[in-house]
């Protein structure tokens, strides 16, 4: 799941929010920075981390726990 967006290096391009399929990331209108609005809806597609031109996003490798078949 998405863990962190490091604002210190962010260039406010908005690509992470644009390419998130789950609307997890939003852009804050007051400072133009992206923030993780719906962390529980991250489904580990890694689109945001892969698209970020300045490498300031970290998505952890483990998915949200869900009921298993056995």
């Amino acid at each position, binding site marked *: 799941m998405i863990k962190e967006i490091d604002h210190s290096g962010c260039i406010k391009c908005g690509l992470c929010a644009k*390419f*998130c399929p789950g609307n997890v990331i939003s852009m804050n209108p007051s400072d133009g920075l992206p923030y993780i609005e719906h962390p529980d809806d991250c489904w580990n597609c890694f689109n945001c981390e*892969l698209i970020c031109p300045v490498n300031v996003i970290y998505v952890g490798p483990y998915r949200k726990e869900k*009921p298993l078949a*056995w």
Partner: protein
Amino acid sequence: MNEQETIVRNNEFITHISDVLVIGGGFSGLWAALKVKENNDLSVNLVDKGFCGSTSHSFFSGGGMVVLMPDDDLDEWVEDIANSNEGIADRKVLRSILENSQARMRDYETMGVTFPRRDGEYKRIRSRGAKKIKLLGSAEGGGKAIVLALHKEALKRGINIKNRIFIIDILVNEQGQAGGALGIDINDGSFHVFRAKATVIATNSGSFRGHHLASDQQGTGVFAAFNKGAKLQNAEFHYINVRPNKFEIEGSGVLPKFGARWANADGEYFMDKYDPDLKDHAPNHTILVAMAKEAKAGKAPLGFDTPSFAEEGRVGFREMMMGHGWMKLIYNKLRNEGVDFLRDKIEWNAAYETNRVGLKTDFGGKASGIEGLFAAGMARAFIPNTLTGLSIAYSTWSGYMAGETVAKYVNDVEMPEIDMQQILSAQDSFVEPLYRAGDTTPDKVVEELQKVIFPADVLILITHDKLQDALNNVENIRDNIESKMAASSIHDLIKVRETETMILSAEMTLRASMLRKESRPFIYYREDYNERDDQNWLQWIVVKKDESGFSFSTEKIPNDG
């Protein structure tokens, strides 16, 4: 203006008029739009709930496509796919997909997609679980490269693409004719009325958020059409994959090619028992059923014997599978956390990927039950076992076909009139959760639903009694919990709608499974009816809405391909 009115802009409708509306921006939706647009006099609006192309299921696919080459035997390939589906297949459709596959591959190459070659010849591999059909090696850059090439082409040809629009209703007039759709802009809450002479649903099938790359599919497009009278097919079939318990890495089909073997808690190579010929190379559904039986017998945890895996196997797997951006990324992230997927003992489990329910259509993609409605990609009912590489070939073909059919259809029809009352009523019903004093959330309800649907003895080792227990639980969720979901944002409203759709889909799949009293091990397994029954069940199960909810009928599968 009260708080709710600042979230959704109830009194504003932005109207968009075009000859054709396409809903969904993956392979099939983009193909449908492009084919219609070959006629420059026709206008196309394409809407996507994410960002067209880049958030689609197509984007995350591996990019391997089944293509019939001149030296391949068409008849053999058709039978191979039909046999992998144990007869539950429309051979005429399979034949057409294969006959046109090479031309579509050339189209992709013209758009700039590269399929890998060795010594001038295309690299090809056998599709998992099949005996004959082969796919090309993954397009360079994966499915992402293909769908982005289509997206670029769509922009070049003047297709109007509207991103971040979630479709909440298909508009159908009193004569039963589709006239477009109503959507909401996810970013600003504005409502959009898309009027069109023809509407194409290309929104993929549904899921229960069981697998990461299908988490955005809840079947809302397909079920919106169902709610307005369109018929569905294949509600009893599912694609359930196997995955590590805690993270998402693909490889269950590929690891055995490099020598990895499935082992139970006692270290037994259990596939020797369930499929003595193919063993670990058996089709996905056979492995899934075997794992469920092992777990039921107390032999879990289950997983590959990776600790004793030969080093060249690890190297081979890394070379073949780490081409996908996210696969390499996740592998390295795990390594950083001290987990080596190719060396450590990893526990695997079932991962519900998608259901196979889709709109019932004719050969050209015209939906059954609503005039002016068409379907493409997995939103159109296809076959239960799509085999590696066939999904892309099918999505490409069905999008192309729908576009061709629609382009002819719109020449002969007028723009349907749509009653404003229908639009207002759809809007009211969508925003209603904002005004509820509900005491639960969509996330909690989805988790309850997953607890009902995911256990192995419901959809993997099927019995009537377990289906009935699950159905009782789903009906309880439907009758006592569904209406208590509250929302405080557009994001929540969409999740409420998705959850309502999943509840309906769960009920439908359980009821459809009760009807199919037989087994076809490659695609469907019932413990209480474990024989294949061609006499009674070489049939499609078709569902349509009625006053009591929905009703089923069956239709003989033609063998005329």
